[in-house]
């Protein structure tokens, strides 16, 4: 039997070689925020040691649960005093391995900070703490009104409702209604940050006395941007004010499912054409391509036979939502869509019976499917079910690159990972391509690859890591850019920024001279490992 995890077992930094120092840090933090809110017990530390990404396991040396901005400030000051690294966690569901304590140190778990501080109907903003989860914020906002009968809501981040809104915004989560709301960073009005040296910094108009949560840029340069997509390198956000949008009651919408006639690999040119043509005339609210694998997965969750569902469904399904102010407008758009399908010759609308089967397998009716797929994807992310874990790889690319990048991606996965007949077996299926969008009137699309693997199988981890690195390098070198940070992506992307990369490094050194905030989550420290 091995001894309990020994935080001193790896030689990375000075503090780890001094157990007495760690005890001292723990005692100070317990005095600062309460004894029951900090622990260095191995059983507590263990549950912070991994996420589902390829980031290697590593335990922090202690965990702290601050209850306020001032608590966070106290912890950061103690960390500075003893030069102990600090990592931050909200829900822990992320694609970048950002909370793994790569150098050990203090895990700041923000679960106690779960308050919605205010919802301002006049300025249409919500101010909340880090552990406010998406579903919770949505529900609370939906009880407030912009004007008569029109309720409020945050932009939909398109992830689990159990994930936290603030970290989703900070890490560049995808606003699913981006055509209406813009991307997440555009929704940020104000933030409160505890900097790496323990100062409390308020960005945006909420920080100015007597102004309030007015969604306006400035006055002066908005330094808030440096905290976005920064992986916690410039401090810990403890409050955020976010723009809200209206849950418009008037547009009606109708969901159609299109079947791509040609099979699989070469179909994306056709899809690109369809996206381009449909969105050029601006008659579609949204297209979203998925595939039968996702459908079968959903069906399996409902206890149905996966193989049978796969057999009953076409290879490629495109979700298509037409919206309009009334049925007449939807009907006009439907005719337009039919004409387009007829012209392309590559798509058909799925027969009602297939659609019914599909919804039945998913355990929902059309209205519910529409709501889940396109409005509130709170529980719809049925990912990682077969293999256990997955690596989400999503890139925003120009439409014309989509098919080529997809082909290259498939070539690598077919060579190194999956069997050629992977569509035939849900067990063998390990990768998938999906499109989300299109954005900007069919000019861009989010090309998403869900890369499924079993993190408990060492051989698969080894192969998966290799394939992941190859795929990622290929995508970056082919001109794709990550939609948001995924594990190790910054190592490849940031050096390509040139002078700006150097500025980031200088900024980090200036703001975090002792290098304590989330070290090694971005390649911007001199001793980056």
């Amino acid at each position, binding site marked *: 039997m091995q001894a309990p995890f020994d935080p001193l077992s790896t030689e990375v930094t000075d503090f780890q070689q001094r157990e007495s120092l760690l005890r001292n840090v723990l005692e100070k933090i317990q005095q600062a925020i309460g004894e029951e809110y900090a622990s260095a017990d191995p059983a507590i530390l263990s549950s912070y040691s991994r996420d589902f990404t390829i980031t290697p396991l590593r335990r922090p040396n202690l965990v702290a649960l601050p209850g306020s901005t001032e608590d966070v400030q106290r912890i950061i000051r103690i960390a500075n005093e003893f030069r102990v690294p600090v990592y931050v966690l909200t829900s822990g569901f992320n694609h970048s391995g950002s909370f793994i304590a790569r150098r050990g140190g203090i895990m700041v778990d923000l679960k106690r900070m779960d308050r919605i501080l205010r919802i301002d109907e006049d300025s249409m903003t919500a101010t909340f703490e880090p552990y406010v989860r*998406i579903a919770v914020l949505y*529900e609370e906002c939906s009880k407030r009104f912009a004007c008569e009968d029109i309720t409020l809501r945050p932009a939909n981040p398109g992830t689990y409702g159990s994930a936290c809104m603030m970290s989703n915004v900070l890490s560049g989560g995808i606003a699913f209604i981006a055509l209406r709301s813009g991307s997440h960073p555009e929704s940020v009005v104000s933030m409160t940050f505890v900097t790496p040296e323990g100062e409390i910094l308020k960005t945006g108009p909420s920080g100015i006395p007597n102004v309030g949560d007015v969604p306006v840029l400035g006055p002066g340069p908005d330094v808030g941007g440096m905290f976005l997509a920064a992986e916690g390198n410039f401090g810990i956000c403890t409050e955020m004010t976010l723009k809200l949008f209206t849950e418009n009651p008037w547009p009606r919408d109708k969901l159609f499912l299109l079947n791509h006639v040609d099979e699989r690999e070469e179909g994306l040119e056709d899809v690109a054409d369809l996206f381009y043509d449909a969105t050029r005339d601006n008659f579609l609210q949204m297209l979203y391509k998925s595939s039968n694998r996702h459908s079968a997965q959903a069906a399996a*969750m409902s206890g149905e036979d996966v193989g049978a569902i796969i057999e009953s469904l076409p290879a490629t399904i495109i979700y298509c939502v037409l919206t309009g102010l009334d049925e007449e407008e939807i009907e006009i758009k439907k005719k337009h869509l039919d004409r387009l399908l007829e012209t392309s010759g590559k798509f058909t609308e799925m027969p009602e019976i297939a659609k019914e089967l599909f919804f039945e397998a998913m355990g929902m009716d059309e209205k519910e499917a529409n709501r889940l797929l396109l409005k509130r994807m709170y529980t719809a992310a049925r*990912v990682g079910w077969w293999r256990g874990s997955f690596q989400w790889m999503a890139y925003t690319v120009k439409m014309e690159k989509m098919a080529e990048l997809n082909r290259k991606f498939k070539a690598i996965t077919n060579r190194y990972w999956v069997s050629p007949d992977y569509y035939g077996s849900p067990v063998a299926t390990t990768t998938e391509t999906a499109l989300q969008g299109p954005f900007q009137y069919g000019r861009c699309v989010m090309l998403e690859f869900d890369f499924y693997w079993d993190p408990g199988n060492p051989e698969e981890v080894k192969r998966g890591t290799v394939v992941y690195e190859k795929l990622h390098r290929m995508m970056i070198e082919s001109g794709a850019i990550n939609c948001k940070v995924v594990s190790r992506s910054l190592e490849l992307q940031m050096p390509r920024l040139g002078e700006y990369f150097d500025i980031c490094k200088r900024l980090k050194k200036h703001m975090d001279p002792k290098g304590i905030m989330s070290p090694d989550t971005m390649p911007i420290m001199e001793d980056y490992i």
Partner: protein
Amino acid sequence: MARNAQIYKKIQPLHRYRDEAWKCLRCGLCRMVNPEHVKSPKWSNQCPSGTRFLFEAYFGSGKQEMVRALTANPPELVMDSRLQHIIYTCVLCGACQQTCNCTKDLEPCNASVALREHAVREGWGPLPEHEPLIKSILNYDNPWLQPRAARAKWATRGDRKVKVKDASKEQVEVLYYPGCTASYDPGIQNVARDVVRLLDASRVDFGILGKEEICCGSTILRVGDRENFEGVRAKNMARLNKTRAKRIVSACAGCYSTLKNEYGEGLEPEVMHIVEFIDELIQDGRLKPDRPVNRKVTYHDPCHIGRYCGVYDAPRRILKSIPGIEFREMERIREWAWCCAAGGGVRTAFPEKMAGWAAGLRLEEAIDTGADTLVSACPFCEQNLGETAKAKTLDLEVVDIMKILSDAVT
């Protein structure tokens, strides 16, 4: 759509949960009510031990990590007092598994049960607070240190006396199994009396085992002592089968789920909770609640009949059939109900820090509905919620569903 989450079913040795422990995505669904059913921030949490202690280890996802670390080769974690605390403050309510199963098929609750059984094998369980209960069951066939001879005294006391057949001596169609708590706890005995009164009013051919009845073993099982449970199970099953009754009904959620789920196919009579049976009687017109009961009522789903066995509609139908009742739902109901933390040996070991705290939150949620009465169908829930309500001097009465129904039947 909620699926049958197979909570507390087919528990495997700890190492069998290792593969799935790796598959936990840390999505956080196990920490909260299924997001589709969240109605307000105040009542959005679902895991009692996690919500109370907040460290990741106390949630379902954290327990998965415990399993992974304990079963690593070599182990990355060994049993210690903190791990013991984490394992035994979990109420095994199954909420984590229910929400996990919205998107994945992991079994965090079943893994927690396996953790508990592992703790027992390693000498870290059951807790000292559990020991007297276990010894009492093994020595006296009940956890309350009471003599066997006193088990059936409830039937001969109280205002509502009825004659009950002795199922150990004559064959009956329905065996009523009150269980230890309704048999011995003076505060709960009225539940047993109400049940027999209702069965009698419905002209059901029923009886009890009386002094021959023994504990179902639930208490032993829930604290992780499967070996001793198997002994109790075998002994009790023989007695129950000997009655040749067609059905066993129990008003105790713990007994019901244990007999139904843990005794397996070897138990010959069909097992029903009293709310299922009474619901049938009402539907068949054999029992008519015709006397108005003027109360504003809300219903607390006990984990052992709800998430463990999927019984949600029957108690609601019963309450709605009673004239005068104004029925109000809390925010967290059915599969997403907040556990009061009476079960899993938690109330015995952590009466105030866990059980009283969790019950207090449930009572607050009930009061938020405007109800004056909180109804449940489990003696442990009634004890825990009722005593907490009294301690807090709340203006809310906690009663068993049989009491309300009995008041409505002339």
